């Protein structure tokens, strides 16, 4: 996070100087930016952290060889985690559950909400595939007891079972459950739980750094005109508008 703090320090200095809205030219700005020293290793760690957390195992492996940056996690576990994620994304929830249980049985045993959401996703897939009888039996045997244990589960269960009541499910009030985004939501929940069980943060650091950058720029906008980064893809400095 040293990068962030040095930016903040810079901002504080600027703020101290400015009584009215100050204009900082591109030259001045670039000079200041050049004064900020960022270690290459730190940058590499940021990249590695992103690749590992997002599960790009091949890229992480290549990056490790090229940059010599050691990942803070066994790369093999990434493969397992990605397999789980992919299984959920493609609707093979039962398969995903078995894989999570092989990875670490504690995850679903100690996380009732995640377990419920996976079971709920299983029910959604059964309904999607038109296996109505099986879906009903599954809801009754596997999900109903969870609903008894927890009020909010019950509400979610009722919403899911409502899928069976509509002819045109896609345009029904509960149609969103059949959406691909529901699978992605469940998949990312499992992904996060596995990461947490491996004592790894569930979000990569890079996006939050970018959010901090945007926040800092917004703060600075009130006090100064300076070469701003608006396009995060190219990270080009724009000339200050006066």
């Amino acid at each position, binding site marked *: 996070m040293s990068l962030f703090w040095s930016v903040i320090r810079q901002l504080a200095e600027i703020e101290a100087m400015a009584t009215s809205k100050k204009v900082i030219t591109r030259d001045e700005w670039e000079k200041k930016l050049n004064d900020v020293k960022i270690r290459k290793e730190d940058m590499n760690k940021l990249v590695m952290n992103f690749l590992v957390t997002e599960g790009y195992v091949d890229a992480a492996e290549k990056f490790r060889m090229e940059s010599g940056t050691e990942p803070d996690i066994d790369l093999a576990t990434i493969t397992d985690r990605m397999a789980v994620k992919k299984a959920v994304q493609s609707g093979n929830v039962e398969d995903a*559950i078995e894989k999570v249980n092989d990875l670490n*049985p504690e995850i*679903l*045993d100690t996380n009732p909400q995640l*377990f419920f959401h996976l079971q709920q996703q299983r029910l959604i897939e059964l309904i999607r595939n038109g296996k109505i009888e*099986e879906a009903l039996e599954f809801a009754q045997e596997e999900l109903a007891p969870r609903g008894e244990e927890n009020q909010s589960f019950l509400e979610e269960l009722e919403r899911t079972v409502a899928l069976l009541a509509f002819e045109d499910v896609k345009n029904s009030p509960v149609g969103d459950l059949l959406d691909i985004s529901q699978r992605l939501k469940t998949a990312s929940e499992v992904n996060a739980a596995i990461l947490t069980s491996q*004592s790894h*943060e569930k979000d990569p650091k890079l996006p939050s750094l970018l959010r901090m950058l945007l926040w800092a720029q917004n703060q600075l906008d009130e006090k100064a005109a300076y070469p701003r980064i608006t396009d995060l893809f190219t990270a080009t400095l724009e000339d200050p508008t006066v």
Partner: protein
Amino acid sequence: MPGSASTTHRPEGLIERLRSAAADGGEAKLKVLRELKNQIIGNRTKKLSYIKLGAVPSVVSILSSASSSVDCLLIQCAATIGSFACGVDAGVKAVLDAGAFPHLINLLSHSNEKVVDAGARALKMIYQSKAAPKYDFFQHKNIEFLISLLDKNNENVTGLGASIITHSCETNNEQKILADAGVLKKLINLLQGTTSQRESSLESFATIIKQNPEVITKFVGPENSTTFGSLLELTKDRYPRTRLLACICLTLIKNATSSSSSYLQSVGIRTKLILVLLELVDDFGQVGDEALFTLSSFIEHEEDLQKLAFEANTVDKLCHQMQKESLQAKRLEGIFTTLGNLCSNLEPCRSIVLQSPKALIIITDALTHTTIDVRVAACICLKNVSRSVKYLSAGHFMTDAVIMPVIQLLYDASTSVQVAALCTLVELSKSMDSTVRLNAVWALRNLMFLVDSRCKEEIFMDLKLFPLTRLISDSNACVQEQALGLVCNLVNGPVDSIMYLFTEGLLLNTVGRELRRASKPQVLVQAMYVMCNVASGKEFEKEAVMQQLVNEDDNNQSIIVTLLQSDVASLRTAVVWTVVNLTIPTGAGALARVVKLRNAGVVSQLKNMVNDPCLDVKLRVRTALGQSMTFGDFST
């Protein structure tokens, strides 16, 4: 996707296959075990039904007969056993009964780290249950084994070590043994490890230092400033649970060593800790609940800390939070407990609660909550809020809404609820609203009638500040009546209980004064019965009553004669009863008392009453006269 998943997974069928796999072995074992494991993980209902069907012994028998070279079989067995033990006490019992424990311990020394993981996880699950056996720290080899666990470079194994401590360390001696064996130091080192290591280490660290000043001074003292520093640092950790656990440890250190020590004296650190805990309260899960209880315990007994918490807007926050819908019992209990603490001393806190639009209603509603602990917490909270003289005076505690539920609590099945209700009533009996006062005292009076003498004593000791004298002289005659009735019940029974009136000093004088002053017959009757009960005591008590009722220096008619002449039969009954008690001929001072009563005109008045229209009076008058005559009829 397997099409007919739920039909092939019928418990009976699976059990059948498990049994046969356990018996003849082979490849089938692995498959059926894995299937069973996937059935029960996360699913409490299924765990219970498989336990009932006897699945656990079959799994354990597969584990015990498995060769140590078949790693995946060992892993599946351990994982299944661990899941049976996870979150289900019946499962822990079944696992232990089936003799799984030694086999799981063996897995810890396996060469394959994955097998070690599975074994350690299963054992950890067992130790996280209350049903697990206590680990014996008094055996040297057990301590050695425990330390070897904490030294392993495997987070499941160190976690197991920590769980054993958290589960089994209860007494001060056990805490001392562990601390002396260097366990605290090892736990501190583990704080550098993974999140789960950090959390389990903090938990067992808290277990070892809990309420043990000796251990704290020796191992967490200033010379061990790194320990203290690490804990402080962890209150800023990224993970909420870690922050909470660090706060719990610091609170334990402060509470066990307060006033004399230099820990946590800095206002800056104290404020920070309160702010960290308050932020955690926003979490609506277990962390937030525990944060509330930690905050409450941190500020308890220290007004300075309560002030800091007040300045941090704790009261507003909690008043706001309690209005959220469908709060869990634990959360409500935490909110009421913390508010109760804050309102025990600080009037501004009470003001905020009372000015909050719904707070008082919510607290009162919680008096009938289904959970005992919530009822107790709400009651104590109400008591402390109602300490506000200003608001009591302004009649904020409306009769029916507030006091009726409290009175109902006196009949609660739980003693702790009763006691809390009682204390609240005492507080409400100070209300300026005479109806509230009346009901509070009434309820207390009935309670005094019901409880045994040991209980009376406890209640009376608890209620040192009880404004009985004030209530007896209350401006409202109904309150007076009930207050006197309360005193009457208090001194009813064995002689010892009469002592209460004398330990309270002025109480008997106050009752006597009311006899001379009051006009309402019901008040006089109750006051007279107090005298009557006291007069049933020994010489000392009888003399005290004589002093109140018969004034020799006064030329006016004695109060006792005036009362005997009352139109109210029940009052006459009470007076005559008292005379009967005073003239029992066996006492050393009996003769002297009869003489005094005679001189005061009591005996001649009694003679006028031998044909009293009230039968009760008539009978007692005869008894009283008979007793007086024992010493001879001096009138003739």
